[in-house]
């Protein structure tokens, strides 16, 4: 990973190390006969922040969902923190508890209060006591700026608040890697920034992050690397400055012109 020399004034300094957090080699996946991931090679370094963009159906969500085995890849190797993903359930659970995920549709547990959402997995997966888990949950809820909503149910919160709870829920497991699957796509425009703010703060802590997103401002500011995918392939990857200023492929140019034209 080459360190960046030029940084914009508000851009975060890269904290990526040489240590590989996620490595994917020759990963292939099919949905039925639809070839959704084609020979994906990707290495993510510890502390690196990657934004993945691309048109819908390009396989970007599937790519990050393969990392915690919400989708099973059929060919190639994925290893996360040195653990190879295969059908071994123990490995899968180990990886899942170290990899947090935030979904487009929040997927909070509607029958549990906000704080119960946050403590469930630490108590049952990390074997914490209830009080320990509750303290940690309140700490992260404070970090996402909604400690006062702890006793409410998800249905009583706005979309932006729900997504921040979802982020806090993942952080309570103290993950080493965070995956974000279009975290702001289901939000009303005025709520997007409150979620992005939380994500930027998270990036400042040096968390390894893979973000599927079309928030190009966020990509410019936070990403160490932007990846453009189409037809299940990584078409282009580069630093955000280079990616936005000098896209190499014509497909990338077309995509950027479409999403940046408004």
């Amino acid at each position, binding site marked *: 990973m080459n360190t960046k020399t030029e940084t914009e004034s508000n851009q975060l300094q890269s904290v990526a190390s040489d240590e590989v957090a996620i490595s994917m080699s020759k990963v292939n996946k099919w949905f039925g006969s639809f070839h959704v991931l084609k020979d994906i090679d990707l290495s993510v370094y510890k502390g690196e922040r990657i934004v993945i963009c691309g048109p819908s159906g390009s396989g970007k969500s599937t790519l990050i969902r393969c990392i*915690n085995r*919400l989708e099973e890849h059929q060919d190639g190797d994925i290893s996360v923190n040195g653990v190879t993903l295969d059908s071994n359930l123990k490995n899968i*659970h180990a990886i*899942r*508890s170290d*990899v*947090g*995920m935030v*979904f487009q*549709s929040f*997927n*909070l*547990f*509607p*029958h549990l209060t906000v704080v119960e959402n946050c403590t*469930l*997995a630490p108590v*049952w*997966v990390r074997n914490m*006591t*209830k*009080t320990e888990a509750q303290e940690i949950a309140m700490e992260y809820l404070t970090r996402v700026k909604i400690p006062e909503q702890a006793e409410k*149910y998800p*249905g*009583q919160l706005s979309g932006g608040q729900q997504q921040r709870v979802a982020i806090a*829920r*993942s952080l309570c*497991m103290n993950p080493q890697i965070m995956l974000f699957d279009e975290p702001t796509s289901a939000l009303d425009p005025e709520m997007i920034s409150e979620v992005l703010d939380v994500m930027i703060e998270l990036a400042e802590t040096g968390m390894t992050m893979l973000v599927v997103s079309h928030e190009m401002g966020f990509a410019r500011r936070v990403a160490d690397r932007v990846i453009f995918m189409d037809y299940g392939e990584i078409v282009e990857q580069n630093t955000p400055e280079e990616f936005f200023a000098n896209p190499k492929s014509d497909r990338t140019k077309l995509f950027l012109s479409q999403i940046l034209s408004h």
Partner: protein
Amino acid sequence: MTEITEQNEVSEKFVPKPSLPPPPNTTGAIGWLRYNLFDGFLSSCLTVLSLIAIGFICVNFYEWAFTKAVLEAANRQECRITPTEFGTCWAGVKFWFTRFIYGRYTDTEIWRVNSAAIILILWMIPVWLPRVTAKLNIALSGVLIFPFLAGYMFLGGDRNWFMEIMVSVAVGCFITVIIHSLLCLFTGAGISKWIIQLTGFANRSERLHKFPVIVFAVIIFLLSLFLINDVAFKEMPNNLWGGLFLTLVISGIGIASALPAGILLALGRRSKMTVIRVLCVAFIELFRSVPLITILFMATTMFPLFLPEGFHINKLASAIVAVCLFAAAYMAEVVRGGLQAIPKGQYEAAEAVGLTYWQSMGFIVMPQALKYMIPNIVSNFMGLFKDTTLVSIIGLYDLLGMINAVSQDPSWIGLHHEPLFTAAVIFFIGCFAMSKYSQYLERNLGAGHGR
């Protein structure tokens, strides 16, 4: 931009019109009557006809149930109101009522059935008291452990080592539940908190807290073992069980086992493991496609033919097993329907935080799915409660069996209507209560989720 502000300056001031009262005869009782009963000529005619029909039925029913009622009589013949006409012979129902409830259970032993019922009620009441904690544990112990105690109280006789242990466990649980509930009600802290406080574990690590509780459980168990040591009940073989009591035993066991078995079958049917899935599908489809009465006959008459010589299976036991299997197959499909209502994202979120399959089912999917399933589950329970009357055909004297027995008694020969009406009332009370309770559950569980 400037144009808009200029327009705003010259625009007229908007004053909303005052609200007027609605036209007369559209609100209140008269409005309701007009709208629902007398909305046009045809509607008015139908209303009048219906009223006449309802009135006719009510008058006749009143005459049958009250005017012609004979409350005191020693046999059917005395129920005549004129030499040729029989009155409504409630005396027969009165005479037989204990038998309707307890079957042929010996009179002197009926208190055992009653006390088991009271124990069950006392055991379950805490579940409905808001101040009591650990409700799930109480309910589960009631469903899983109480049956052993009840079974012994009903059956009596000698206890083998297994029953000895299970009955002591049940007695211990019952004592614990009662102490726990009283502590919760009067001090606000449950029994485990008290134990931890009193043994001085409160200021030790939370991980050690289970030890004094376990020690207490063992003590209670040994105490119960000692308590029941001298207790022995006269044996009441289950061919003496009958009436509503038997109906409740069969349907109670069926209801209690149907839900867990149905959940397992439904999960099995959705499993990715082919063998398990095929087995579950085969079981569900087989038992759903065969009438209950066929299964009952198979269980009581054909199944014994396959057993080795001298190996007897109790008729009641095989009927109960048959009812349980049948109910489980139906429940499985209800549960599967509920599971399908849970969005995929919930499964994914549960998996993504590292919960195992059983954890995500138990904490995330089932609690939500069960809420959607309540109306169907209760319908199934009501169906099961009424279906148990079929066991009267294989010669068990459940409520319906006892009702039919009345008309064969020489003193009360031919007495059909009054006992059947009584049975209908008893079933209605049971089912209506279940239905009302399910509505209450739905409202209560729905509150606060704001979904």
